[in-house]
Each structure stands twice: as structure tokens, then as C-alpha cells.
């Protein structure tokens, strides 16, 4: 336990020990205790872990990520309340797998844990969504899908988020994507001008799907009649 105190000083809520780490080695060092606990809980899905600059990365099987994140979120000794990021990494070495990365943070215990799952390039890129655990994963996963083309199974609304809908050139952050896009500049301009933002980003689509019952009567009538913008 004393070893954990040097790196993870906070052991209980309200502990006022400063959490700033000092003299952290570049490689190695004390791992986040959640890594070992995760390996004990999911022995078949954890491939190992490494500690770099005091940050622990656990390599896992992609298929198990939803269960793992659920457990890390709920287990009283871990309590990862906050999902900081969902992203992906593609390496310049084309043979190497694409990594999907989840950054979890426990505010209560001052812990940070990074989960990485490797996806082989031949198969469809697909991982389970963690939206059922963290609602904040919604846009993070959409961005990851938009930029890398990774499908998050179970996401309620997996659409492009940065590029416009109907973007046909592919997934911009993939290494095989040319930096200026696949189409010529004039073609890109024509495609962009053909997009009709008002038809896509309608009030109906953005806000009122869940709250339809609470809308004023006249707005309900107009939306029920197929009106798109709600103006």
C-alpha cells in the first residue's frame, strides 16, 4: 500500500494529499492499481499493461470493452466517473493494427487509466460502444467514427459529426487518406455547396425527438406535417 501512496496518494474521498507526481520514470514505475484489478476481474480479455510517464495503459480485447468500462465505472474501489476521451491511433506502419483508446478518469480517487484495443485492418473496424455507461461518449464516438471509420456497436446515433453528412471522400485521419482529400478542389466545392444545412440540421433531428410531448401545440402540428426547420 505504501508503494501506491507515492503515486496515487489519495486513498479516500477528502484526502488532501497533493496529487502531483514527482520524479516519475519515463518507463516503468508504479502501475495504477486498477490495472491489476482489471486483469483479475477479466483474465481472458486483458493482454497486459505498461506504465509510461506514470500513466498506465491496459491492453484489452475490443469485444470486452463495454463490460470492462461498466465494471470500472461501478466497482466501489475504482469509480471511474469520467470518460475524458475516445479516440483512435493509426500507425504509419501499414501492417500495424489500429488502436482504439479510451481515457478514463476517477476524480474521486485521482486515478487515470488508459484502455487500448487493437483492431486488425483486414476485418471491419468495430468495437462495442460505451455509450450505455457514459452518455458523454456519444459525440466522442461519433468523432472517432467520422475521422477513422470505426463503428461503435450499440451507439444510438452514429453519424458524422465534423464532416457534413453525405461526405463521400472517406475518413480523413486514416493514413491512406490524401491530405487534400480524394476529389479535386472544384469537385469538393460542388459537393459542399450541394449540401443543404437547413435540411440536415433540422429542429426535429436535433432537439425534439425526445421532448416532442412537451412542445407547444402549433410546433407539434408543424413538425407532424413534415416541416423540417420548425421556423
Amino acid at each position, binding site marked *: 500500500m505504501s508503494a501506491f501512496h507515492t503515486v496515487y496518494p489519495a486513498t479516500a474521498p477528502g484526502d488532501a494529499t497533493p496529487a502531483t507526481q514527482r520524479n516519475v520514470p519515463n518507463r516503468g514505475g508504479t502501475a495504477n492499481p486498477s490495472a491489476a484489478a482489471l486483469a483479475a476481474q477479466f483474465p481472458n480479455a486483458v493482454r497486459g499493461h505498461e506504465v509510461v510517464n506514470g500513466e498506465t495503459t491496459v491492453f484489452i480485447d475490443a469485444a470486452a470493452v463495454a463490460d470492462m468500462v461498466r465494471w470500472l465505472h461501478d466497482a466501489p474501489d475504482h469509480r471511474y466517473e469520467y470518460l475524458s476521451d475516445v479516440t483512435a491511433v493509426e500507425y504509419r506502419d501499414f501492417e500495424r493494427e489500429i488502436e482504439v483508446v479510451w481515457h478514463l478518469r476517477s476524480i474521486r480517487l485521482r486515478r487515470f487509466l488508459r484502455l487500448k484495443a487493437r483492431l486488425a485492418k483486414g476485418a471491419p473496424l468495430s468495437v462495442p460502444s460505451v455509450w450505455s455507461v457514459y452518455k458523454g461518449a456519444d459525440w466522442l464516438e461519433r468523432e472517432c467514427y467520422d475521422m477513422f471509420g470505426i463503428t461503435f456497436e450499440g451507439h444510438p446515433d452514429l453519424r458524422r459529426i465534423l464532416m457534413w453528412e453525405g461526405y463521400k471522400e472517406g475518413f480523413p485521419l486514416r493514413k491512406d487518406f490524401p491530405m487534400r482529400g480524394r476529389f*479535386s478542389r472544384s469537385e469538393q466545392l460542388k459537393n459542399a455547396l450541394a449540401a443543404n444545412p437547413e435540411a440536415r440540421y433540422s429542429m426535429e433531428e436535433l432537439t425534439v425527438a425526445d421532448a416532442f410531448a412537451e412542445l407547444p401545440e402549433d410546433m407539434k402540428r408543424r413538425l407532424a406535417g413534415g416541416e423540417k426547420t420548425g421556423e
Partner: protein
Amino acid sequence: MGLTTRPDTTAITLDAGGTGNEGWITTRLDFLVNWGRANSLWPMPFGTACCAIEFMASAASKFDLARFGMERMSFSPRQSDVLICAGRVPFKLAPVIRRIWQQMPQPKWAISMGACASSGGMFDSYAVVQGIDTIIPVDVYVPGCPPRPEGLIYGIMMLQKKIMKERMSNTSLRDEMAPDPTSQLYIPATRIDELSEPFGNSVHQTRSAP
């Protein structure tokens, strides 16, 4: 190019003195109308990036755009005269700036502020329009990255000079440039591709579509 109805420079210099065959009353009336228009330009600020910070500095007390009749920032395109595009325009915003331009009533002008709005600047990437003059007609380009407020004010004064040269007898300076009917672009598609190809740091990258 066969695309524009905009006069070339000879037409402008011909009318510059206002001598020609026009009478004294029409030239004085021209002067009065142009003077009013040039000194009450209401800008529609379309600020997307760091140029917008310089634009705000231009509008603030030290440089004070109100000296040029730009007292009121018009955040509605329907009450504005000059569209100042300050910053890069991604392709996703292209239909938006086009719609804003179409919503502005005549007479209207456009200033392209900064390198990114004028040419795409350093953003020679999949996401950024390589010069807004492909999607709206631009009257004044202000170079700089970003331009200082003096630069923007110089561009505004150039626009004012252009407005002062308008004549009732020759409406060619007033006519809005028409986009290419098929592509709806203000520069022919072949010219855009020709201009955009050799530049940037991605010359050696391949495309899968023409």
C-alpha cells in the same frame, strides 16, 4: 473568362473623372449617393478564426471603424452592406456563407480578410475552401496572416474608393458577378483545379478520383 459581367479596369478609369457625356446634375447626384453609401457601410462580420480578433480590434476604440461609417455591426445579413469574411472557411461552411451572401440586399460588397479567406492560406487540406472567391464574388482582398487593423482599414478605404467610382450612366460596376450556371462557382472549375494543383505540401499525394 466569359464568366463575369464585371468591368475591367479601363471601364473604371474612364468613368473615374466623371467628365464624359454626363451632366453636372447627374455627376453631383452620383457623388452624393456614392458618398452616402461609401461612408455608411454596415459590415456583416463573418469571423471564423484569428482574423476575427484583428477585425474586433479594428472595430474597437483604438482603431475605431466607426470613423468610416461602420458604426453598426450588422449581425443580420438582411441589414448589411459589406460581408467581411475574416478567417478560413471550411467546406462545411461554404453553403452557409453562400446563403448569407444571397440574403444580403443589393448594393453589397465583400471583403476577403486574410490569407486563409483569400486563398486557403496554410490550410491546404481536405477541409478548407481554397479562397472564398470561388463561392462568392469578392471586391477587396486584404493580405496578411492575420492582417493588422491598419491593413483592414486600408482595404475598407479601397472599397470606399471603388464605391465612389460608381456612375448611374454606367451600371457595370454595380452589376453583381454571375456564377457559372452549371457549377455555381465564381471561378471556372477547370481554373480552380489548375490553380490548386501545384501548391502546398501534398503535391506528391495521389487522388483516387479526377
